[in-house]
């Protein structure tokens, strides 16, 4: 069953249609990736799903129910969390406070402490720096914090927008490892990436996006071996 489904979604900035009828579905328990070049509309798709933008047409279904018109905090309470583009760490709050804010809607203190412990075990660097301000972390550490913060919400569905952007290769590998682990632990993942090669390696299913439209889709392994993909990914004509 599809946990998240987009039906013919159209969204625009003013008169410019950024999404020209996107349909896709993310089945429960899987990793689905949306790849494409800069400006293809990947981040707009994420923003529309999370309620930061309202679609002009179409529907977004989460667990079979429409979430169009909901505020982001309501969508979070339904179990879907976004790790936004550029991490968006709270610079003037400590690492620990950032993680606490991730669990803002939770009240189960004991379970929260358990999750916090798990995140600190997985990212020992965050533990070392727990009392430092978020703004003092390096890019890679901030991405780990952003993912850790999202995990603190214990989402059923995790959206990640360009988690590898601007990171050193070593960190990129680590981030993709973490995404796979999160998925194995039972969280459904929808991943937007420019780093198509890496994304396709961990994903089950893939969509390729170009100037506001889905131009190709299929099992990730098939997409990865398709000769047209690199051209599409670069944003050129096939």
């Amino acid at each position, binding site marked *: 069953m599809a946990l998240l489904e987009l039906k013919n979604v159209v969204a625009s900035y003013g008169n410019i249609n950024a999404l020209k009828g996107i349909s896709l579905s993310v089945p429960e328990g899987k990793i689905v990736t949306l790849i494409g070049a800069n400006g293809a509309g990947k981040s707009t798709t994420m923003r529309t799903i*999370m309620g*930061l933008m309202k679609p002009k047409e179409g529907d977004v279904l989460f667990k079979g129910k429409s979430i169009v018109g909901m*505020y*982001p*905090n309501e969508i*979070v*309470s339904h179990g879907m*969390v*976004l790790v*936004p583009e550029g991490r*968006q760490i*709270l*610079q*003037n*709050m400590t690492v620990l*406070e950032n993680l*606490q*804010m*991730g669990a*803002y*809607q939770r009240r189960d203190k004991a379970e929260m402490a358990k999750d916090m412990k798990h995140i600190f075990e997985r990212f020992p660097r965050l533990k070392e720096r727990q009392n430092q301000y978020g*703004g003092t972390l390096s890019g890679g550490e901030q991405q780990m914090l952003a993912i850790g*913060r999202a995990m603190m*919400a214990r989402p059923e569905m995790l959206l990640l927008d360009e988690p590898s952007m601007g990171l050193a290769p070593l960190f990129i590998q680590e981030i993709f490892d973490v995404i796979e682990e999160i998925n194995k632990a039972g969280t459904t993942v929808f991943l937007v990436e420019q780093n198509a090669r890496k994304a396709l390696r961990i994903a089950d299913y893939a969509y390729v996006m170009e100037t506001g439209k889905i131009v190709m889709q299929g099992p990730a392994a098939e997409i990865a071996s398709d000769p047209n993909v690199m051209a599409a990914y670069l944003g050129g004509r096939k």
Partner: protein
Amino acid sequence: MFFQQLVNGLTLGSVYAVIAIGYTLVFGVLNIVNMAHGGIIMMGAYIGLLLVTVAGWGLFPALIGAMVGGAILGYLLEVLALRPLRGKKVTHLAPLISTIGVSIFLESAALLVFGPQTRAFPTDYNQLMDFGLFKISEIQIISMGTAVVLMVLLTLLLNKTRIGKAVRATAENIETASLLGIHTRRIITFTVMLASALGAAAGVLIALSFNAIEPTMGTSMGFKGLAVLIMGGLGNVGGAMAGGFILGVAEVFSVAYGASSFRDAVAFGLIILILFIRPQGLFAKAGKGGRP
């Protein structure tokens, strides 16, 4: 003389600091200067006065009553004057103009209801204590003590509680805060109410210190708070506190050492000077602070 003026300056400064915190909290979450804050300060003073004179309450219950009244006014300000403009395709100056409208409304309403005459704030605390180096009145102790307690409580609220952290997150980045699951609209309302409650408390403290309440008192106090807001760095609570004390001390010293008619000129001269040297404010951190 020096210590006496220092005590006077710190007392005045503590009240300025509370006023400036009210501005800075609202600026943090809404990115606007709340021009109605002066009006709320004035209303707080009148509510305190009515509770003391008409209802016969003691000073501290009246102070708390004024804060509750301030919070209610803050709620109305947010729901009636600010919320309808949010998310609409209006200029970003619209909410600023809207708060100016509220400020004019509050001042006119006070003029209509309470009349233009200056009223005294009756109090039993008129003892003067002599410490040798300086003398301090009971009113000064109450005023500074209350201001400091409010600032300590606010600091604890912002740093230790869930809702306080949500206020800080919303102030830093409203979109990120909403993605973390924070009900940002509710946090904005809460922040405006909190700021207005502090403003009303400051109004009572001013009424007490100057022993004068009038419908226009909010305007001059409001501008001073604004000066401190800019001096401390927009949206920076610690900066507002420090800035308040600096302005208070500077003002008192300028009066004491010969320039009493330049009292307000000192306040605003200080802003101009600081804006030349540190346009982002004295204590601004990277990011939010210093945005025009």
